[in-house]
């Protein structure tokens, strides 16, 4: 339970800018002066996750650049027949808006958590979870539609075989992240609603006392999932 020593000099009295970077990192204590270990570790985890998704997207780029067969046109592949005409990419656009909305509700949940507004925080987190689950549901619909049309990891009716493997790998991994996020959102929302962070109740898994910062750390993860989707949307669906 030992926290690393926080500096006793308040951060606003420390040097800022580049000089601050050198001073913080060389201070022989903790480098992140006003960030708890939980938050710092979530950031480090997200950084490593960035590399995972970076590798997926680079692998996709390599496959697409080096294939001699035409790459399937995402605009047509992901079109839906709605209102009597084909709307290109419409499902993906709706999924994007759903995920962005969930990010917005999450940001507001974090805000209310710091105001100790239990009810609003819990409701907004539940709303975030519902939007996230909606996103996963739409992704499941998209997967089954493509599988029925004959897309497989080893081939598809429209061109380069790597399209299927890249699609299932990238969106599958992202969907897994969303699913895990929804589960953790529900857990944290339950704790907030029950008042665990006000009564200093111990957690069921680590037996440690939590606090409202858990909501912000949860938020970091959730926004990251949204962030990854921004890149997937641009590189996989629009490119």
């Amino acid at each position: 339970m030992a926290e690393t020593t926080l500096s006793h000099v308040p951060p606003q009295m420390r040097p800022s800018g580049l000089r601050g970077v050198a001073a913080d990192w060389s201070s022989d204590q903790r480098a992140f002066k006003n960030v708890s270990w939980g938050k710092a570790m979530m950031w480090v985890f997200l950084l490593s996750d960035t590399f995972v998704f970076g590798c997926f997207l680079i692998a996709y780029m390599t496959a697409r650049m080096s294939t001699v067969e035409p790459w399937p046109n995402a605009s047509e592949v992901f079109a839906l027949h709605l209102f009597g005409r084909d709307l290109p990419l419409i499902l993906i656009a709706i999924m994007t808006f759903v995920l962005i909305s969930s990010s917005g509700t999450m940001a507001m949940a974090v805000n209310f958590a710091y105001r100790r507004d239990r009810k609003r925080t819990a409701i907004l987190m539940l709303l975030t979870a519902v939007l996230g689950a909606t996103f996963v549901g739409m992704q499941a619909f998209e997967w089954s539609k493509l599988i029925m049309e004959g897309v497989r990891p080893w081939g598809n009716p429209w061109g380069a075989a790597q399209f299927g493997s890249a699609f299932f790998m990238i969106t599958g991994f992202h969907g897994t992240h969303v699913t895990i996020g929804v589960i953790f959102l529900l857990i944290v929302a339950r704790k907030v609603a029950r008042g665990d962070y006000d009564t200093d109740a111990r957690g069921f898994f680590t037996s440690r006392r939590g606090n409202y910062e858990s909501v912000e750390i949860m938020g970091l993860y959730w926004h990251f999932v949204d962030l990854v989707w921004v890149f997937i949307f641009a590189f996989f669906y629009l490119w």
Partner: protein
Amino acid sequence: MVEATGHRMGSSHGQEQPAAVAHTDSHQEHPIKLYLVVWVWLFILSACSYLVDYFQLQGMLRWSLIIIFMLLKAGLIVAIFMHMAWERLSLVYAILVPPLVVLVFVWIMTVESNYTLWTRMTFFGAAP
């Protein structure tokens, strides 16, 4: 967190700093309006990138618009929603600089895939 502010290692003697330890944690309290504004902007930018596809813009215009909208959205999410704009520079650099190195990897794989494509066209007689 706040409990850690109780640690006063090394300062037990010598300089006295009574109430300076008040608030070391970075609690982020911003008006809700800020989040709503960012939310609206994310909607607008997503709609713009969708319209790039809807109107089937092609060529350099397409790629540059996609990249610009993508970077603007990513920047808004990281800076405002993830509160990066209010963190100390040490954390910002520790998190944001390493992903930039991925660009080197992108460049390496670009060279590699150009070479692969060239060999496929040259030795397998396939035209793109």
